[in-house]
């Protein structure tokens, strides 16, 4: 049995740690969260993680903050959400506060730049790893609509730079239409 304090502590340390390593911002934190909360802690299902990511993306504010609110809420209600918010905003708050004191020195430091350049390859590799897992799961469903949505959404955002909000809206509508057609075509229980 996990006690409440233990869960809060784990929520805080996990989000703090993830936030401290989320270079690049935006969606980069989602694969890290997926690895931590789905693969590592088994606190949520992979599908649910993707649902939460979609909600985080379509809400105002930073994706990382939104996603951590949803995660915290899912694991342990409003109090859990407060814990994860704190865990997510403290690393940038501390790091930027320190850097702002001597930011020109930091910006022009060759060692800092070299290490950050090296880290880019590592971050790209971590995302590639998660994308391979998630993408092959979508393909394994053998659902043509899902596979098509994935390919088209990728092309729209990466090549055509379509606003992500429109992509989310269109894909949501596709999903809704598909389920409405399915419901209409399947015999209703009430007809018996």
């Amino acid at each position, binding site marked *: 049995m996990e006690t409440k304090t233990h869960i809060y502590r784990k929520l805080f340390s996990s989000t703090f740690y993830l936030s401290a390593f989320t*270079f690049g911002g935006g969606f980069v934190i989602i694969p890290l969260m997926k690895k931590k909360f789905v693969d590592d802690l088994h606190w949520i299902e992979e599908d649910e993680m993707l649902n939460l990511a979609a909600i985080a993306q379509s*809400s105002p504010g930073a994706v990382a903050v939104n996603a951590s609110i949803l995660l915290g809420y899912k694991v342990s209600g409003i109090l859990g959400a407060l814990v994860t*918010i704190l865990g997510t905003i403290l690393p940038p708050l501390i790091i930027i*506060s320190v850097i*702002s004191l001597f930011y020109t020195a*930091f910006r022009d430091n060759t060692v800092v730049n070299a290490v950050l350049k090296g880290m880019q390859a*590592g*971050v790209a590799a971590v*995302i590639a790893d998660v994308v391979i897992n998630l993408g092959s799961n979508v393909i394994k469903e053998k659902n043509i609509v899902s596979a098509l949505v994935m390919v088209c959404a990728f092309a729209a955002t*990466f090549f055509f730079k379509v606003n992500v909000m429109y992509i989310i809206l269109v894909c949501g509508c596709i999903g809704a239409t598909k389920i409405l057609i399915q419901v209409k075509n399947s015999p209703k229980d009430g007809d018996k």
Partner: protein
Amino acid sequence: MTMLQLFWSFFQIGMFSIGGGMAAMPLIQNQVVDLHNWLTLTEFTDLITIAEMTPGPIAINSATFVGIRIAGVPGALIATLGCILPSCIIVSLLAWVYFKYKELTLIQGILEGLRPAVVALIASAGLSIFTLAIWGKGGFSINVQSINYISLLLFSVAVFILRKWKPNPVFVMVGSGIIGGTVYLLM
């Protein structure tokens, strides 16, 4: 008064930057440079550079950076609070709605449509960072001379290690930072 203004400016930034990341940038510039003259354009450019070099969402980074310059640590806290408050309220409401109604067939259908799109968004974020790591700020180019082979090697080895041994991703990121950093400095 300054505190109130800081709070209100970043509240608006938090409220209207849907989609996060670079979408917030023009809003931040408008509030911080154009409306309030808290930063000069050069300082703002520095801020963006630093925000890209450090972890964390750009809006939070800016709030901290601007807040601390205008009113010290309390300013940083107030600006950050203003920035995340809209998210806290709206996302908590959405979370409540989602967990209450997620079993509805229609909601299930919408979410089913969104999941592959989210995978695509993650892939796109990954590919942008990959391009930056391999080709630098200039972006993709067919010219083989513009390829950063150290980065490419680091990336390939890191993917191999991640697929084979499934280590904690943070070790892979820090490891590639240290190894890559050392190689770049020695060259």
